């Protein structure tokens, strides 16, 4: 879900950049001294996650992890994702520098939305509620990201519904996997380091 350079129209790029900037500055304010390492670790996880290709049928899919990043960081997901995407753009030429703002929005807005909806149910003491909420968090963050990519592509003349359908269909397996990975991670964290879930900026 990296939009390449030269695909989008200038207004979309500028708008994406502005939103990303606003989100990042808000996120940076929310980061406390104690949570800096946590933001860095999740940024690194996001940076690496999309490199892990899982062969699937004739093609392959990769993880996004934006739901997990959002669930653990809240608004701080913006700077974490921005840094990871910047490094991916510079080092691997995934996406591009001009589309960095839009790509950050595509990944970070769902992350923050997922945080707003699922943060408290995912921290529930009832195991199945927590599991279900974190699964939905991971899956819906990918879904929302796909919808945002489709929205951004409307500016290139693609019809929204057909673009959205194509991208959501392509990401169905990713959604299922993301959900499972997020749920398992949250379960694991709850057992091993429950204070991470408590200390949300």
């Amino acid at each position, binding site marked *: 879900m990296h939009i390449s350079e030269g*695909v989008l129209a200038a207004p979309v790029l500028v708008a994406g950049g502005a939103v990303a900037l606003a989100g990042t500055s808000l996120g940076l304010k929310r980061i406390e001294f104690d949570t800096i390492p946590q933001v860095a670790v999740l940024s690194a996880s996001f940076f690496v996650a999309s490199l892990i290709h899982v062969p699937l049928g004739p*093609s392959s899919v990769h993880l996004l992890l934006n739901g997990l990043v959002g669930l653990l960081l809240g608004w701080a997901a913006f700077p974490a994702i921005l840094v990871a995407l910047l490094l991916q753009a510079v080092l691997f030429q995934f996406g591009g520098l001009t589309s960095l703002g839009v790509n950050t929005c595509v990944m970070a807005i769902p992350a923050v939305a997922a945080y707003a909806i699922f943060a408290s149910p995912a921290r529930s003491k009832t195991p199945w509620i927590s599991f279900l909420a974190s699964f939905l968090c991971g899956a819906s963050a990918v879904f929302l990201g796909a919808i945002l990519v489709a929205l951004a592509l409307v500016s290139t003349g693609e019809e929204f519904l057909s673009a959205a359908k194509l991208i959501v269909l392509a990401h169905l397996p990713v959604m299922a996997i993301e959900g499972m990975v997020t749920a398992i991670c949250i379960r694991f964290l709850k057992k091993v380091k429950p204070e991470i879930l408590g200390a949300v900026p």
Partner: protein
Amino acid sequence: MKNIKKIAAAAFLGMVAFVVFPGRATAHRVYIYAWVEGNKVHTESYFSSGAKVRHGRIVVFGQKGEKLIEGVTDKEGRFSFPLPKQDRIRIVLDAAMGHRAEYVLTMSGYRGGRKSPAKKAKEAETEPFIKTSEDEIRAVVETVIEEKLRPITRAISRLERAKGPTVTEIVGGIGYIVGLMGIALYFKSKKQGQNSK
């Protein structure tokens, strides 16, 4: 034990999901490479995962940005078109979902070999005493060279396929993030120190 069972069940469900939803490539980047063979331009398009771009839209632009040819890649990610008269063409691939790549092909060195050398040879037979012109020799030589170079052109096209990110780049990226964390911690700790004074 219970938990291990649960995690195993979850992992199994994940694997089932893999099989149930056969997905399309969700690679990050597309590549296009073009080369000239005879009087045709061949292009090959593929994702960074190595998968071929099927049904990708290809548009060829001329020197002044005018649209020359439009087409769609086949199952092998290939698309060929006749060599245009322009010296420099820009081939743009649009692989949907925001994936896009382009390749600029310069024709210098490909021109001149248009005339069939066989025909020339025949002409030379009928008029054996006419000195073979420089153009004719050039045409023959170019055809032969092109044939000899074909495997090399192919090999270069394979080599030009950028491999995925290397370990160095990945580790480097993580290093940058750790560095940024250090900078952030440094400034925050300075602030905290000032506050406590």
